[in-house]
């Protein structure tokens, strides 16, 4: 039995169904990230776990106990809000201790708990300041301190890093990951940033329009997306989704990629998914991540399934750590990720290696993965 179980959860506002039957579970000490574009219901889902929103149907269980009818304060959870929601009229110490004060914890115990948390988060020197006298990163720490001091069963984070600048966001991300590793707490974390999702999670639920599109480990989500939405949403730069045709030539299938004013590229697919045979002579969406489309020298040497084809390079983007090259296949701009020192010129043709063991195929009608 999992530690956190969300079972057939539905949420309606009037006639509008915001959450359409969510089923998710998380083991103790796990880190679940709810990710999706804005308006997908991820924050609403988090609020229902917190008890700030009532659910219409279904059940939420923590440690085997149904909590969906309990008041937020009785659920043994702590929450970190996007705006940090620090009480502006109280000092940092007052903010951290407020929950304990409301529960009637004696002052001496409160002080001990504050000191302990302040030590973990290194905010001891800030305890007597007001939130308005803190920087963004310090506020973020205090908000986490307020959650940590409670020692709850479940931590909820609602886009905690989205108000920080880019560099601080990376620092705090590492901080959160370290905190999770050292304290072993169970966390549910909402974000729209797929990099945060990939780096932090032990489990990811990709959501759209109130439904979980895919639920799995980061590697599963990244390498085996179940549909075009998940494939497109996760990964930066996004996966190349190229309209293509499947061709059969006797002993195997191959994928045909159209090119402007040139011969189409034909790539044989040994070990093609079994479902692909039904799409012979039909259109599919051919999905290949930028890192699976690279210069032949940079391709995995022991990759079993690498095919090379000349491509016309339209744009070159040197990004420092990598060089991105844009070519045109199937009428779409396709991004290839090359080594930083790859010698490549825009307007020329250059061989690119397709790692076909990493390629995926989707049905253009249903947008689902062809397995």
């Amino acid at each position, binding site marked *: 039995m999992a530690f956190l179980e969300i079972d057939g959860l539905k949420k309606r506002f009037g006639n509008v169904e915001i959450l359409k039957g969510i089923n998710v579970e998380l083991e103790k000490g796990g880190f679940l990230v709810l990710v999706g574009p804005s308006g997908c219901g991820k924050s609403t889902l988090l609020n229902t776990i917190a*008890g700030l929103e009532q659910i219409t149907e279904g059940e939420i269980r923590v440690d085997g106990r149904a909590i969906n009818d309990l008041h937020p304060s009785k659920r043994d959870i702590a929450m970190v809000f996007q705006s940090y929601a620090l009480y502006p009229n109280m000092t940092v110490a007052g903010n951290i201790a407020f929950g304990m004060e409301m529960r009637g914890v004696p002052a001496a115990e409160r002080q001990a708990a504050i000191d302990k948390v302040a030590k973990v988060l290194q905010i001891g020197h800030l305890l007597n300041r007001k939130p308005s006298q803190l920087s963004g990163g310090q506020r973020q720490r205090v908000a986490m301190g307020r959650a940590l001091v409670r020692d709850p069963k479940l931590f909820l984070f609602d886009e905690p890093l989205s108000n920080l600048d880019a560099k601080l966001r990376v620092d705090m991300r590492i901080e959160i990951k370290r905190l999770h590793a050292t304290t072993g707490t169970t966390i549910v974390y909402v974000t729209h940033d797929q990099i945060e999702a990939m780096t932090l999670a032990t489990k990811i639920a990709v959501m759209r329009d109130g439904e979980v599109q895919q639920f799995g480990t980061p590697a599963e989500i990244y390498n085996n997306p179940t549909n075009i939405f998940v494939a497109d949403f996760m990964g930066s730069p996004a996966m190349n989704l190229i309209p293509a045709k499947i061709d059969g030539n006797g002993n195997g299938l191959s994928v045909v990629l159209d090119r402007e004013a040139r011969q189409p590229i034909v790539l044989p697919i040994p070990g093609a998914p079994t479902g692909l045979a039904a799409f012979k002579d039909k259109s599919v969406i051919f999905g290949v991540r930028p890192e699976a489309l690279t210069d032949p020298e940079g391709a995995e040497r022991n990759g079993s399934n690498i095919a090379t084809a000349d491509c016309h390079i339209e744009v070159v983007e040197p990004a420092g750590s990598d060089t991105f090259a844009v070519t045109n296949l199937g009428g779409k701009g396709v991004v290839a990720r090359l080594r930083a020192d790859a010698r490549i010129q825009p307007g020329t043709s250059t061989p690119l290696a397709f790692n076909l063991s990493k390629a995926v195929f989707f049905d253009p009608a249903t947008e689902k993965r062809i397995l």
Partner: protein
Amino acid sequence: MSAVASPARQAASGVRARTLNRIVIYGLLALFAIFYLMPLFVMLVTSFKTMDEIQNGNMLSLPHAPTFAPWIKAWSEVCSGLTCVGMKGYFWNSIKMVVPAVLISTLLGALNGYVLTKWRFRGHTLVFAMMLFACFIPFQSVLLPMATILGSLGRFGVTLQNATGFNFGLGNSTVNLVFVHVVYGLGFTTLFFRNYYEAFPTELVKAAQVDGASFFQIFRRIMLPNSLPIIVVTVIYQFTNIWNDFLFASAYAGSGDVMPMTVALNNVVNTSTGVVEYNVNMAAAMIAALPTLIVYVVAGRYFVRGLMAGAVKG
């Protein structure tokens, strides 16, 4: 002559135009300020003059021999109708009415605003619209219905008096006025606080809920301590309105020892025996105006700031 003016000359003419604008703007403002402050000035200087000086001198001139006698007379001797005990009793009547009325209406307005923004219920917009409508009801139209209600409360007070030996203040004129002003002020105070709390981050309330704070704990520990600007605005607004009110005061407490300041001042000025003592009248009027003036001076900058806050996010 070149077609393009040199940057230096352009800058110079820009500075001249700006200076001229400034002179016009500040000149007009000064003129209006003088216009508004003139009556106050006349009242103030007249209240320190002797009657001789008033009858023979210029209205705008400063007093030759300033005297506090008119102020002392206004405070403790002047006649309001037939009783000649000064304004002091009526001043305290007003204080006894204003302080509870302001505190109660402000607190209830804050509570209403808190519920209407953070604990929304079905039909909250309708309730708010009706409370807003209360702001536009003219005083005169509620005079008679309110008199009926106050009469009933008075009779209920008598019943309580007979039953328990204590009337709980029902039927008392000061209590009646407090009640009337609280009811009439609720529309305004609710409007102020609702608009302020509308922009108040709801996440703070949610965080407090997760922290285990109750409805009133959130109100007392989170909402009120962060509402200083709007509390000041509401207090100034309510204090000025209630202190200056004449209609309700004269209708429900228009005679005897219970008169508030405004009614008493009217009686002093309208007393028509002998010479009109302008200096004493002016001093009495100054005494009547002083509390609102002090409130403005002490808290005025919050007033402007608070009104602006409501204007931008409302």
